[in-house]
């Protein structure tokens, strides 16, 4: 074969040569994540990256995962050399937000920041030093100081609302999810509150392939979403009416007797008896003295007697718990009350969800509801859901209704079923590092032995505790004693200090079924001490003084907007630090920007997720640019500076609000394990080796072995993250499906009733009429009179705001923020494709370009999020239009599993279905 010749051909050949290849990935909070890449370097500069395509096949007959990656990853190298890259420590010299900075030395920056921290501790207490928990794994080590000082870190889950409150309320599990290759096995996939064509670029193929394999795909979305185009059916459901749709399907299934009776009896609370007089479960303390408050009962139809529902198992051997009827029960005080199974109440409750009636609520034809209900009842069905539903005010109800649909039809705990979301795992090595008593893996073994002993101690108090319950109890105890850097649910801080009080107390932002104001619910929860351990009272008086954001972008992310924070929070802050490899909007409003190494310049791992089950190496391909440093190095240097400045100022210790005395000496020794783990490479290797000890990674895994293969498949869940919520044993040659411990082994759930719980008899839930999942319209937050509802979701073009300013990517869309509008509706309003429009709610307004499409629902404005505020005129962006209101039921903190744990149950703001008006912008001036 003649070789194509000529100088031109050689020039092209030359472009595709390199002198070095390393494994790479992106240690960012990318929730698909987990992509193994190769990074190609020539003459000391990163040329490009390419997916390695190297993931071994897992289960026979299931497509492999290759080649995981996306367009953002394919030009991440471009961000390394982008004009928004920061390579020197910067100190603000103009007013905040002016963007005027001057370069300073690392020592000066760190000393001044350390002094800011120490001033704050002295003047307002350690609770005034706020660190934000941005989940970017690569940035986490920059926050080491908060871990050793025990200053509070805000639970990021409230900031980005990636929580499925309704699923938690049902299962007591945080996002039990399958691996993505399990999607292939579904016979019916409902893409619902998700847009995987945008958000799961490297995994979407499993949906397409499940369809080619004979499965059916139905997309349920208000708009003809990009994830509807490859579906078999699209149900254009009215915005926020999904619960009604799910419940109507439940009604069809119950009426037709298509529900899985045994699954319902065994896995759910629906056979448990509820008192007709109070609407509360019949409890042990009702029935006899000395019985447990959390003992619940069913009626066994075989023996015709009242039986305690076993707490140690889900098995219903020898009994047939009633799902219907009414029974008389003698209470311990001699009274006789009528009780009925929760299922009986559900059946009555579902009378409101007749398909004909629901058709008018959801704007979905009754026949379509019936047809889909029968399909769900007869097929292995998976709900492909994202983290969209939880961002609706009534997202809990939507998710509880979806879970009910799956529960009635037995659709969890076997392959090809369940509800997809996302869950993190495998962080043990990183999280436990500073708690080891020295370097090396024997120290890791001692630590883990201690943790296991603690669980044994817990189990001694209650032998029916499952491993999952022990894990959760241990996490609760750790949180209460302030372990793990004192992560706190930030809602109370926000209410008292961030300026949200007025908005959250505004009844227009709430459902009319709440008889009291938000403030009354909040004060009751605080006064009753439901959140005592979590700083609920501290911020009534304590003002924040220091804010440290490493890897995140608060002023882009926080619902409620830049304006609110800059007006209410910023004046209280004396030191604001952005640790980042780029200048974000938050960076522009900071006092200091510390330059972090980019992802191919440091050691790290991609977001470890249950979805792919791989620990994926991000290696260092080139040294950090300019003066930038790896996050771990920044973290250690900041601890060193705090210790140095404390010594110089004669500060040796301080007391936190819980009375715990915290030392300001020996901090560096603690984080570096007596100096042994000082540099990044050593630290990362130690993390990996420890993970192997903790059983999370295969025995013998080290940085060196990772450098050979680029990744290692997880071998166990570990104790940090949501691994244990998967409730299934990992198998090396099978797709992972959650819930198998419950469904196959009959292990109880960690809910109040120890079953999947659809009936929640908390007094506030009863008061709101939400003891069973129901449909409620989204409150008219944003303005009752406004004609549009704004919806959102992750976009296709960036990871949050990361990569949004990459000019390769900017050239693949309109190169500026835009909103989708229905074409005909926009035309009637005099808005043409490409026009600048003004989107206004009661709390704010933004200017944005209009994109017109028949795919957008009339009355809907779709703004995919992630645009930097500084990409908008006047820097007014989407979050400025969102009130950031919170549903009061999230404040329940005293009920079984409705209790705070990190990254779990807590009050979270809503941002979907905000009422707005849309008009063609007539003036070009920035908004005020």
């Amino acid at each position, binding site marked *: 074969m003649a070789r194509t010749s000529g100088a031109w051909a050689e020039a092209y*050949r030359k472009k595709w040569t390199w002198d070095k290849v390393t494994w790479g990935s992106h240690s960012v909070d990318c929730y698909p994540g987990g992509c193994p890449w190769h990074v190609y370097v020539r003459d000391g500069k990163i040329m490009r990256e390419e997916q390695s395509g190297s993931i071994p096949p897992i289960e026979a007959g299931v497509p492999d995962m290759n*080649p995981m990656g996306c367009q953002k990853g*394919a030009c991440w190298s471009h961000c390394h050399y982008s004009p928004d890259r920061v390579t020197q420590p910067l100190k603000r010299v103009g007013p905040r937000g002016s*963007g005027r900075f001057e370069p300073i030395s690392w020592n000066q920056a760190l000393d001044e920041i350390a002094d800011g921290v120490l001033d704050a501790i002295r003047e307002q207490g350690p609770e005034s030093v706020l660190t934000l928990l941005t989940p970017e794994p690569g940035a986490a080590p920059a926050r080491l100081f908060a871990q050793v000082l025990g200053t509070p870190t805000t639970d990021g889950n409230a900031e980005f609302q990636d929580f499925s409150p309704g699923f938690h309320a049902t299962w007591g599990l945080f996002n039990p999810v399958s691996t993505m290759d399990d999607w292939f096995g579904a016979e019916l996939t409902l893409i619902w509150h998700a847009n995987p*064509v945008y958000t799961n670029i490297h995994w979407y193929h499993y949906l397409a392939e499940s369809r*080619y394999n004979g499965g059916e795909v139905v997309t349920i979305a208000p708009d003809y979403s990009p994830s509807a185009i490859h579906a078999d059916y699209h149900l254009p459901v009215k915005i926020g009416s999904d619960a009604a749709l799910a419940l109507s399907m439940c009604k069809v299934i119950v009426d037709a007797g298509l529900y899985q009776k045994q699954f319902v009896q065994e896995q759910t609370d629906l056979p448990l008896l509820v008192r007709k007089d109070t609407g509360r479960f019949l409890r042990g303390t009702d029935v006899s003295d000395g019985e447990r408050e959390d003992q619940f009962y069913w009626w066994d139809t075989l023996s015709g007697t009242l039986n305690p529902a076993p707490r140690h198992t889900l098995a219903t051997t020898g009994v047939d718990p009633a799902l219907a009827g009414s029974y008389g029960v003698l209470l311990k005080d001699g009274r006789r009350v009528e009780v009925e199974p929760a299922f009986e109440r559900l059946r009555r409750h579902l009378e409101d969800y007749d398909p004909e009636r629901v058709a008018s609520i959801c704007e979905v034809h009754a*026949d379509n509801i019936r047809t889909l209900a029968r399909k769900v009842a007869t097929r292995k069905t998976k709900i492909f859901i994202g983290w969209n539903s939880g961002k609706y005010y009534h997202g809990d109800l939507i998710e509880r209704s979806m879970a009910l649909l799956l529960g009635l039809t037995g659709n969890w705990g076997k392959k090809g079923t369940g509800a997809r979301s996302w869950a993190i795992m495998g962080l043990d090595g990183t999280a436990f590092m500073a708690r080891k008593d020295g370097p090396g893996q024997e120290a890791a073994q001692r630590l883990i032995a201690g943790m296991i002993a603690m669980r044994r101690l817990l189990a001694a108090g209650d032998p029916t505790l499952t491993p999952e319950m022990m894990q959760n109890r241990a996490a609760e105890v750790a949180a209460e004693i302030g372990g793990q850097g004192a992560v706190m649910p930030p809602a109370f801080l926000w209410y008292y200090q961030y300026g949200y009080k007025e908005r959250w107390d505004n009844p227009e932002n709430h459902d009319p079924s709440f008889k009291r104001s938000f403030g009354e619910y909040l004060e009751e929860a605080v006064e009753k001490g439901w959140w005592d351990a979590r700083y609920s009272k501290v911020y009534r008086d304590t003002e924040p003084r220091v804010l440290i954001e490493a890897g995140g972008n608060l002023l882009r992310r926080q619902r409620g907007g830049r304006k609110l924070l800059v007006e209410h929070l910023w004046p209280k802050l004396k030191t604001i630090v952005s640790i980042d490899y780029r200048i974000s909007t938050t960076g522009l409003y900071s006092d200091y920007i510390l330059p972090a190494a980019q992802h191919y310049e440091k050691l790290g791992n991609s977001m470890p997720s249950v979805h792919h089950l791989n620990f994926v190496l991000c290696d260092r391909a080139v040294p950090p640019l300019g003066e930038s440093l790896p996050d771990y190095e920044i973290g250690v240097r900041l601890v060193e500076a705090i210790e140095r400045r404390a010594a110089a100022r004669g500060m040796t210790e301080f007391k936190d609000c819980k009375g715990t005395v915290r030392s300001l000496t020996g901090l560096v020794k603690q984080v570096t394990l007596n100096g042994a783990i000082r540099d990044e490479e050593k630290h990362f290797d130690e993390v990996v080796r420890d993970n192997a000890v903790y059983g999370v990674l295969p025995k013998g895994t080290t940085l060196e072995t990772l450098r050979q293969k680029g990744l290692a498949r997880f071998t166990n869940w570990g104790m940090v993250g949501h691994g244990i919520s998967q409730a299934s044993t990992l198998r090396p040659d099978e797709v992972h499906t959650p819930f198998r411990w419950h469904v196959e082994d009959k292990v109880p759930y960690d809910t109040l009733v120890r079953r999947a719980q659809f009936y929640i008899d908390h007094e506030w839930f009863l008061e709101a009429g939400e003891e069973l999942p129901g449909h409620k319209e989204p409150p008219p937050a944003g303005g009752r009179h406004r004609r549009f509802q704004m919806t959102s979701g992750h976009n296709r073009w960036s990871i949050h705001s990361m990569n949004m300013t990459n000019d390769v990517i900017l050239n693949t869309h309109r190169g500026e923020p835009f909103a989708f509008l229905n074409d005909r509706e926009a035309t009637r309003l005099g808005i043409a494709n490409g026009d600048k429009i003004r989107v206004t709610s009661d709390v704010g307004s933004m200017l944005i370009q209009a994109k017109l499409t028949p795919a957008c629902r009339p009355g809907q404005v779709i703004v995919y999020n992630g645009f930097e505020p500084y990409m908008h005129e006047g*820097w007014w962006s989407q979050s400025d239009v969102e009130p950031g209101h919170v549903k009061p039921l999230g404040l329940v903190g005293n009920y079984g599993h409705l209790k705070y744990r990190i990254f779990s149950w807590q009050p979270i703001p809503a941002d979907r279905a905000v009422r707005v008006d849309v008009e063609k912008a007539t003036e070009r001036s920035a908004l005020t």
Partner: protein
Amino acid sequence: MKTVHPSKRQLAWVFDLNKCIGCQTCSVACKVLWHGEEPGTEQEWWMTVNTQPGRGTPRDWEAMGGGFDAQGKLRLGKVPTDEEVGGGWRFNYDQVLRGNGDGVRHHLQKVAGSKTWGMNWDEDEGGGEFPNAYFFYLPRLCNHCSQPSCLEACPNGALFKREEDGLVLRDEEKCRGAQMCRRACPYKKIYFNRMRNVSQHCIGCFPRIEQGVAPACVRQCPGRAAFIGFLDDENTAVGRLVGKWKVALPLHPEFGTHPNVYYVPPLSPAPLREDGSFDEAAPRIPPAYLESLFGPAVHGALDVLRAELDKKRRGQDSELMDTLILYRWKDALGHLTRDPAEIVWNE
């Protein structure tokens, strides 16, 4: 008169439009690999994905002419203007991020005078009327045609078709920037590099192919929608999809150039009747529209797809569906399965 340009073997691309999700990974992979920051190439996107129906890139390219008429006579269309190609945007980073204390008075935007169109300007807009809107994604690159009109039109003999794999390449030393190729190409996938005064188009990743590595657009497709292989090899997915099952069709066959990029046409969700119930029998995407893109053969191809899909739904085997499922990703790459990271270059 139309000349025949036989190549011994022809390499072909297949894109499964039922798997393509418009993510632009192919486009970006190509852009970063072959252009990077090179001045003169700002507007060049040899690989693009557009939402159909739409005006595409270059804007309204389908009406610009080129190719051969029914008699095989070369037709010269128009050269797309820079404005129609669009993109190449630069942004005012320094003004916003390193300005002089102006803060919110400046926001990040394209610098003045930027083009008002881009390579994916009408992304996710499509056609129809809500709730029966419709759209799908169409990836496009040089078709490496068997009857390349660009080659025919070039006054400088710069273009040639490789014998061994049928790639249509350009000797950039011979190219004088006459841009007749741009007039003649009916797909308007040829760009002009003003810095070097040469036209440029997809080089089929020939340096990769020489090393046994699949082109970037194929190897980097995370949707597993892209396939490559020799047309005459029925052991490859490409050979099976094009030759055996005939479900992969060229775009605008009426342009007369015999393209070698093939598409598995899109299925679509059942449309809704006026009352909101599903009309299972009716197509959502108008068949006439699909025919306008892929010719009359599209109807038969869709029938085959539906029939084979139905087999799987009834629990039967289907070689076609299994090919499209692509159990092992490397089966998409034909003979080009080498991992590029294994290559060690010796100068």
